[in-house]
């Protein structure tokens, strides 16, 4: 090994490599990459690199603390014999990237040694892979390298066997962040030509000129010309000076699409108030008026989450976020940062709600698609493949959710080719909060007061996460900033989350609290300053990860796991004592004022001093125009029914990417922690994926929280109105089916749009928002929170170096949250008793537009690719009587099972009901119906139910007017037989379905 006095290496590995299955599993994964060569064996070592002066006895002691003597051996500054390895790789983090393992290791040493490491000492973690490989080509190496390391956050070092032996091991690499000192605040001239101004807005403030004299900019501000004009105007007329770089960066954060939702706020066509106020907030306002005393909303659209009533003593909160752009670049970092970030939207609700359930949703392209995409021309800057993205985002939510002790019960996985350039990663958290604190304060209300200290707590600030907010407001290109990528640290967050929610809140130790998300403290402090009318911050007091950061970087950094609190000076000593004893770092960085200004200084120098009012409301409102987008709908030529192999189509449906078992994800997520799960992600002994989960948050109360989600991206391609309306109907019906009353259901909206400057895309957006209003108002289900992400486009190059643009299908995710009065009402979709009657409740449905069946037929080349069919349209008013009738039966406990029909139609409902407990069924199809359309259409508003024989007549009477078809009976054995007009049209078995259902993701 290359010795270096600057540091030491501790390498830990299994004495018996048979016990370390990671190597074996990795070998399979690497060989599955499609290498020309072959990898015969892989084994691993964990490495801790110690920077600074450590005595040999200290290193020995460290080794004893970090390894497990029962199974591990170790080497200190030694060389592990490479055995038969032909090549050795080491993967570690780049300087400044969050290294949680190293952080815990340093804490363990500090615990044992009674003092933290010295300032010039540090620990870094890395992994060494020993590969015994044959015939690896250059291309193979590239594939392996890209699989094992993400160049945006990790370094990868290769050594051939000979070099490894000659060099005596891998090199000692110390990834310390070294920044040039003495960065100052500067003024920015806005009186510049328009082209220069545009470059400033798009690519950022000029940082310096490189050796070739080329300008290097700081990264996107995402400010358009009218906004820059307003800023120039304000500074020249009101402040009578140029803005500082920090002020401009702060304005860019505060005014970003990500934070201010400029498109949803803009005047749009005839909608002076804009989409958000007219359709989303408008729906909620109207519903709350109609409901009067029965209003369930308590805090909507004003806080980090929305809140509805749970019972007399508690509220439940809910919030769903997206983390799409970061997840495209580093899927693991993007999704873990997303989930722990939305957890903070719960802790930051009111005076602090306790996170009790996580939600997730992943939209990706076909994971078997290996056709490469590049962000830059000439085959440079390759985008991650769909499979790699999927694996990474699944891992991120697992680590974030599990480590935080929050059950991750509710989720989905959806595929569409449009998600190839940029995945959609939805993350959400439900919280529980007592209506009043022990001190008698209403816990959903809060206000910073002039004179309160500004306190930041949690993690420290670094260069990671700069320009996150402005970056997600732009489309993804080759120049997307790597500093936007971060890795979450759930344990740091868990420590302060517990301290706040379980202790400080009840002791009334702060006046206000909010999360540090997009824009970092520049947004959180300025946002809280509105509550009292001003703030004064001393920026040098903000704890940083390393020296040398510029003032503007400290102010806008989005380094994770931080909260901002307003604390009365007399409460601070008690709060500080509590936080220190809980291992949480907390610092006073200034105070809230009533000056009307946002004032920031750095080492005594004023770096920001401007009107709070302009900072928050100075942005010129956009006025946007839409243009109708012609529908792709057309008539569909279906194959002759006589030629269809109905059994193959039926069984094949269960193996489709969107409908097959995704249990490999839900079983990696702890859905049981906190001990409240009563309807789990999988149903029955057959472990069939559910669509709704139910959690009983208080162990002594029979009340429960029911959650569901729905989206129809395939319908969006044809009709965004139908996509939104159907998603709302499905999300609501999912909750009705488990026994939740319609009167206690609320909705959350997440719009993930594309090319939002395009008037046709804006028209689709408007249609979508109109559907949200019209459908929600009929059901009486208010929106309580929402978020939009407007530029989910990828522009880059294909393998032939042709320019390609891939946009996500306009996607609206509807998340529903409901409160069940008693878990006794709960039912699943599992058929439970042979002889039970099966009914289809609800009517309508011949259109196949956007359905899985149509895509299946296209994949089988039975329908032309250009045949889109017609969209199933429905009137929610017409469905209400059915839903009201259904609720009477769920309240009485008369159903044995319910399945709300959605993707895959009746076919999927029948198959999943059967697979759940292994029962078969017989079915008689109406003679007037075409069998495939009857089975596979996805018309909304319908349920498949099973009931005891004796209940049949009551069902037929109650539902006769709304559509009620008696389909058949549950059968003891696992046989599935469907008749039509006395003939068998389809015959299969639960075993065959289960095989198809489980095979698609078997190797994941």
């Amino acid at each position, binding site marked *: 090994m290359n010795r270096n006095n600057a540091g030491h290496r501790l390498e830990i590995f299994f004495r018996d490599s048979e016990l370390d299955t990671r190597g074996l599993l990795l070998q399979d994964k690497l060989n599955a990459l499609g290498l020309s060569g072959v990898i015969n064996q892989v084994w691993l070592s964990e490495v801790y690199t110690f920077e600074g002066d450590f005595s040999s006895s200290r290193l020995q002691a460290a080794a004893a603390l970090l390894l497990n003597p029962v199974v591990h051996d170790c080497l200190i500054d030694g060389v592990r014999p490479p055995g038969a390895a032909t090549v050795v790789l080491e993967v570690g983090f780049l300087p400044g990237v969050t290294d949680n393992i190293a952080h815990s290791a340093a804490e363990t040493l500090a615990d044992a040694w009674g003092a933290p490491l010295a300032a010039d000492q540090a620990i870094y973690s890395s992994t060494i892979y020993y590969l015994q490989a044959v015939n690896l080509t250059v291309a193979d190496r590239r594939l392996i390298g890209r699989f094992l390391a993400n160049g945006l956050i990790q370094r990868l070092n290769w050594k051939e066997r000979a070099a490894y032996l000659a060099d005596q091991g891998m090199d000692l690499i110390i990834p310390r962040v070294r920044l040039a000192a003495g960065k100052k605040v500067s003024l920015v001239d806005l009186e510049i030509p328009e082209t220069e101004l545009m470059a400033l807005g798009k690519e950022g403030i000029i940082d310096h000129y490189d050796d070739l004299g080329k300008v290097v900019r700081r990264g996107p501000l995402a400010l358009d010309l009218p906004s820059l004009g307003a800023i120039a105007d304000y500074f020249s007329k009101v402040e009578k000076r140029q803005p500082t770089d920090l002020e401009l960066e702060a304005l860019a954060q505060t005014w970003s699409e990500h934070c201010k939702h400029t498109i949803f706020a803009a005047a749009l066509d005839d909608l002076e108030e804009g989409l958000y106020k007219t359709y989303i907030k408008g729906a909620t306002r109207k519903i709350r008026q109609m409901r009067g005393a029965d209003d369930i909303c308590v805090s909507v659209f004003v806080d980090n989450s929305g809140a509805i009533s749970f019972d007399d003593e508690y509220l439940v909160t809910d919030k769903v976020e997206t983390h799409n752009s970061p997840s495209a670049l580093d899927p693991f970092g993007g999704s873990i940062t997303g989930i722990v970030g939305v957890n903070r939207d719960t802790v930051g609700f009111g005076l602090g709600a306790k996170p009790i359930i996580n939600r997730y949703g992943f939209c990706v392209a076909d994971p078997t698609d290996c056709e490469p995409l590049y962000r830059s021309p000439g085959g440079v800057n390759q985008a991650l493949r769909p499979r790699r993205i999927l694996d990474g985002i699944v891992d991120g939510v697992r680590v974030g959710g599990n480590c935080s002790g929050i059950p991750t019960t509710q989720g989905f996985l959806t595929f569409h080719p449009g998600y190839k350039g940029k995945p959609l990663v939805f993350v959400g958290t439900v919280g529980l909060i007592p209506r009043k604190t022990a001190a008698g304060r209403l816990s959903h209300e809060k206000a910073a007061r002039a004179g309160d200290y500004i306190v930041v707590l949690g993690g420290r600030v670094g260069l990671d996460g700069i320009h996150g907010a402005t970056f997600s407001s732009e489309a993804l290109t080759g120049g997307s900033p790597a500093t936007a990528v971060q890795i979450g640290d759930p344990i740091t967050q868990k420590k302060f989350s517990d301290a706040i929610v379980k202790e400080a809140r009840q002791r009334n130790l702060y006046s206000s609290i909010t999360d540090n998300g997009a824009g970092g403290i520049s947004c959180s402090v300025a946002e809280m300053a509105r509550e009292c009318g001003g703030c004064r911050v001393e920026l040098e007091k903000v704890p940083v990860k390393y020296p040398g950061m510029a003032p503007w970087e400290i102010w806008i950094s989005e380094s994770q796991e931080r909260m901002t609190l307003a604390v009365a000076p007399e409460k601070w000593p008690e709060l500080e004592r509590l936080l220190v004893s809980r291992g949480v770092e907390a610092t006073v960085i200034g105070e809230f004022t009533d000056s009307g200004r946002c004032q920031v200084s750095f080492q005594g120098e004023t770096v920001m001093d401007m009107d709070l009012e302009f900072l928050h409301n100075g942005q010129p409102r956009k006025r946007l125009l839409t243009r109708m987008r012609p529908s792709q709908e057309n008539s569909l030529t279906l194959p002759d029914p006589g030629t269809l192999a109905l059994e193959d189509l039926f069984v094949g449906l269960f193996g489709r990417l969107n409908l097959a078992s995704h249990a490999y994800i839900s079983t990696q997520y702890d859905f049981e922690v906190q001990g409240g799960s009563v309807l789990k992600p999988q149903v029955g002994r057959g472990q069939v994926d559910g669509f709704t989960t139910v959690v009983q948050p208080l162990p002594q109360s029979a009340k429960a929280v029911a959650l569901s989600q729905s989206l129809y991206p395939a319908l969006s391609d044809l009709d965004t109105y139908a996509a939104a309306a159907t998603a709302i109907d499905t999300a609501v019906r999912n909750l009705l089916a488990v026994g939740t009353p319609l009167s206690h259901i609320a909705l959350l909206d997440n719009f993930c749009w594309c090319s939002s400057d395009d008037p046709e895309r804006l028209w689709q957006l408007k249609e979508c928002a109109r559907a949200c209003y019209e459908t929600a108002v009929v059901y009486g289900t208010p929106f309580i929170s929402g978020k939009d992400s407007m530029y989910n486009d990828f522009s880059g190059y294909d393998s032939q170096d042709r320019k390609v643009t891939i946009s996500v299908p306009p996607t609206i995710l509807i998340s529903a949250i409901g409160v069940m009065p008693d878990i006794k009402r709960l039912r699943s979709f599992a058929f439970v008793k042979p002889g039970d009657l099966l009914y289809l409740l609800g009517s309508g449905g011949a259109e196949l537009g956007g359905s899985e069946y149509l895509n299946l037929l296209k994949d089988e080349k039975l329908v032309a690719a250009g045949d889109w069919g017609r969209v199933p349209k429905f009137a929610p008013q017409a469905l209400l009587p059915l839903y009201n009738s259904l609720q009477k039966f769920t309240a009485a406990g008369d159903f*044995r099972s319910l399945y709300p029909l959605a993707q895959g139609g009746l076919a999927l409902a029948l198959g999943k009901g059967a697979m759940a407990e292994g029962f078969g069924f017989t079915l008689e199809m109406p003679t007037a119906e075409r069998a495939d359309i009857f089975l596979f259409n996805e018309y909304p508003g319908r349920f498949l139910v099973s009931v005891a024989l004796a209940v049949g007549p009551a069902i037929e009477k109650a539902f006769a007017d709304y559509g009620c078809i008696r389909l058949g009976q549950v059968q003891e054995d696992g046989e599935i037989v469907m008749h039509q007009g006395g003939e068998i049209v389809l015959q299969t078995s639960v075993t065959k379905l289960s095989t198809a259902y489980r095979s698609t993701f078997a190797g994941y």
Partner: protein
Amino acid sequence: MVQPKVLLLTGYGINCEEETAYAFQACGARTAIVHVNDLIAAPGQLGDYQIFVVPGGFSYGDDTGSGNALANKMRHTLWPELMAFVAADHLVLGICNGFQVLVNLGLLPGATDNTFGSRRVALIANRTARYECRWVNLLAAETDAVFLRGVSFLSLPVAHGEGRFYAPPETLTELKQRRQIALRYADAEKLPAHGSFPANPNGSLDDVAALCAAQGRIFGLMPHPERAFRLSHLPEWPQILARNPDSDWQQPGPGRIIFENAVNYFS
């Protein structure tokens, strides 16, 4: 009857303390959730309790090996008090991450009935190299574990990334002889899993899911009995209701007996 007092540890990523405390309360014990730093600041308070619990969770994010970092911290700060606690006629329970902590502390399995402190077995990464959250079946071994009195079979959920039990062959033989293996993973037919996934969810040697020591007074298990405390916890709860709409959700679940045994030990 004496009402035992239970101290449940929290902090640094422990996350099952509330539902575990509830399980003890519902069985008649008094409980206190105490932050590890508060216990370190006043370790003498351990003497006020009869049952010491390290609940499940993710202490230190499982970094440097699950349970390792918290065990190190406790060894350096609480060892004399823990030894005094164990020497008295008290109970110690470690669930999931708590079990990992007890193993790393050397409280399980221990060298003899009253010598502790060396690590003799390990709970390492699951054979699937993946976190597994699923319900498993368990057979009680020939054991003296106080917590398993009257138990022959249990169905409980597991949720862990590092639950694969390993012991050197001579240690395993010794554990069997000393009746320290407490639970083994089983299949749906209540037969030993013989290492097959998913019945044995992590690849544990000899299907070991739980250990005990000190005449059965120290007990650690990978599954979570507090998550199977009542009928509504069962995965088949909705189907139970479908068959009998009058089912009572508060009826005992399979995990409850573990807490009842602990509380009744002091009666």
